[in-house]
């Protein structure tokens, strides 16, 4: 069924009562976290049926990747999930490095872990701020953005960019971190646990916030797995699985951390889990800072990794390699690789297929928000319409990675 605009007709399902009404939430709606459109059929205020209409942000990134060199895909990955760019950079870089069978120096691996966890904090802070704002607690937003600002400044010092960092590259990192980097991260994580306490003080004991979340949007463990829900949302339903611990990548096996679990499966459980995850991330960052190895931040592969500017201007070889990499890219052995990582929102995966040329034959992103959206109806059915807003906030979706 479609009208000239290509929009589905808003009609109650056949056999429905006359008093059913179909309501359109979004795509332009402050609580829809971007351009999500929900078609909701309601009986009075009770949700009878709900389905998400997506694609308003579809930019064809997967198609664009096929026309770029492997290096040129890195900036595109930032733009998929603009709230956790480093996680996307990391996942893509790991996938291509496995195709190339490149060894990454330990210092680069540890810095990648550190940055992935900083990104997790960054993403969870935005989630907490906007989620609380959806519920009506506006103050928390101002607090979380205060801390997020410091993370963005650290990113800016690293890469020159606040959001679209493109810092994790194939074969290592873009450049050495600035001299004050370690001190700055140390300063940030020293004060950050207190800030988490501050958020918890504002929200955890707040009866209005609690009543809006407790018992709302329940998702059973069985449904979570069947519908492809991953990450904190799945762990909030009692499924104990985290790729960082269970299928480690980039040296995560060398870090000690707990994976928080809750069994309730409601919005409140998801809230508590993400707060706990932030505390665990602080611990991982501290371990990364304490045990940071010495050495290179790029793999020793001159035909793949861009040389330093200094070398490029003094050494003939480096200049030739630079010219070759920029103009022709580098050939990647034919094959296919699926690399999964634990992004702030759940299991992210990059499926890269190479046909042996300098451009990827196919790049597919498995982004955690996309399947999570399928569980929305299960979570909202039979609840009040106002709960839909609480549930959408609690599952932490980013439309950029849903539509790609």
């Amino acid at each position, binding site marked *: 069924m*479609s009208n*000239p*605009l*290509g*929009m*589905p007709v808003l009609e109650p399902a056949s056999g429905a009562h006359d008093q059913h009404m179909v309501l359109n939430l979004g795509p332009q709606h402050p609580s829809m976290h971007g351009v999500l459109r929900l078609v909701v059929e309601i009986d009075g205020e009770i949700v009878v049926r709900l389905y998400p209409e*997506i*694609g308003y942000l*579809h930019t*064809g990134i*997967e*198609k*664009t990747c*096929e*026309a770029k060199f492997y290096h040129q895909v890195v900036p595109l990955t930032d733009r998929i999930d603009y709230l956790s760019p480093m996680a996307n950079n990391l996942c893509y870089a790991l996938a291509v490095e*496995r*195709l190339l*069978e490149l060894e990454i120096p330990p210092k680069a691996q540890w810095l990648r872990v550190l940055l992935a966890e900083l990104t997790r904090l960054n993403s969870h802070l935005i989630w907490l701020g906007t989620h609380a704002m959806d519920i009506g607690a506006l103050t928390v937003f101002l607090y979380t953005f205060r801390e997020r600002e410091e993370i963005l400044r650290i990113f800016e010092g690293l890469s020159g960019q606040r959001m679209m960092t493109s810092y994790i590259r194939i074969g290592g990192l873009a450049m050495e971190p600035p001299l004050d980097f370690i001190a700055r991260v140390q300063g940030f994580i020293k004060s950050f646990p207190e800030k988490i306490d501050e958020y918890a003080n504002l929200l955890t004991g707040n009866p209005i916030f609690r009543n809006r979340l407790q018992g709302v949007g329940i998702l059973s463990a069985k449904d979570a*797995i*069947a*519908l*492809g829900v*991953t990450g904190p949302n799945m762990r909030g339903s009692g*499924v104990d*699985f985290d790729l960082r611990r*269970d*299928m480690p990548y980039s040296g995560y096996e060398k870090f000690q951390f707990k994976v928080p679990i809750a069994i309730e499966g409601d919005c409140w459980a998801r809230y508590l889990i993400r707060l706990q995850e932030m505390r665990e991330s602080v611990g991982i960052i501290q371990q990364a800072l304490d045990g940071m190895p010495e050495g290179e931040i790029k793999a020793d592969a001159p035909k793949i990794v861009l040389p330093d500017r200094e070398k490029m201007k003094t050494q003939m070889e480096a200049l030739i390699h630079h010219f070759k990499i920029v103009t022709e890219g580098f050939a990647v052995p034919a*094959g*296919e*690789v*699926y690399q*999964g990582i634990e992004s702030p929102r759940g*299991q992210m*995966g990059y*499926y890269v*297929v190479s046909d042996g040329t300098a451009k990827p*034959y*196919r790049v*597919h992103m*498995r982004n955690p928000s*996309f*399947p999570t*959206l*399928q569980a929305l109806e299960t979570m909202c059915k039979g609840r009040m319409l106002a709960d839909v807003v609480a549930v959408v906030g609690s599952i932490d979706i980013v439309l950029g990675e849903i*539509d790609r």
Partner: protein
Amino acid sequence: MGDNLMGKTAVMEGMAENPALRAVLSWKPEALVDAKFDRGELTLTIAADQIRAAAATVQAAGYNAFEDMTAVDWHPAEPRFQLSYHIVSHPFKERIRLRVMLGGDAPTVESITPVWPAANFYEREVFDLFGINFEGHPNQRRIMMPDDWQGHPLRKDYPVEGYR
């Protein structure tokens, strides 16, 4: 990460203990068309008309979580479309890839949404962007592109800059 194993016989000899491979072989050996173990990833190529039953078989063998599904267009080679299903096992902490090859002429395959409801959006996406039909899909509509869009953008014969 062991050595790479190419071909069905090599994988059957080298990875006889793998639960997914064992389950598929004890269910229907002729459904397994090809297999490879490359860069630490096991790929089982399944006959196109057996994919739903194969999915149910590996699900019962402990590969409980559907993770991802997509297609690759090998135009102009035949068979043209390759479907890749990535399935992760929580108990074994490992991943397998099921693969199906489809011809380019009116490609149709059984939907695995009845086995894993999570495949719903993924199959809609492949239908939308590659034009592959999924038999038995509960709601096969375009998901990314507008409903009246002409063509399937991720096919290799669709220009990157679109038709002008």
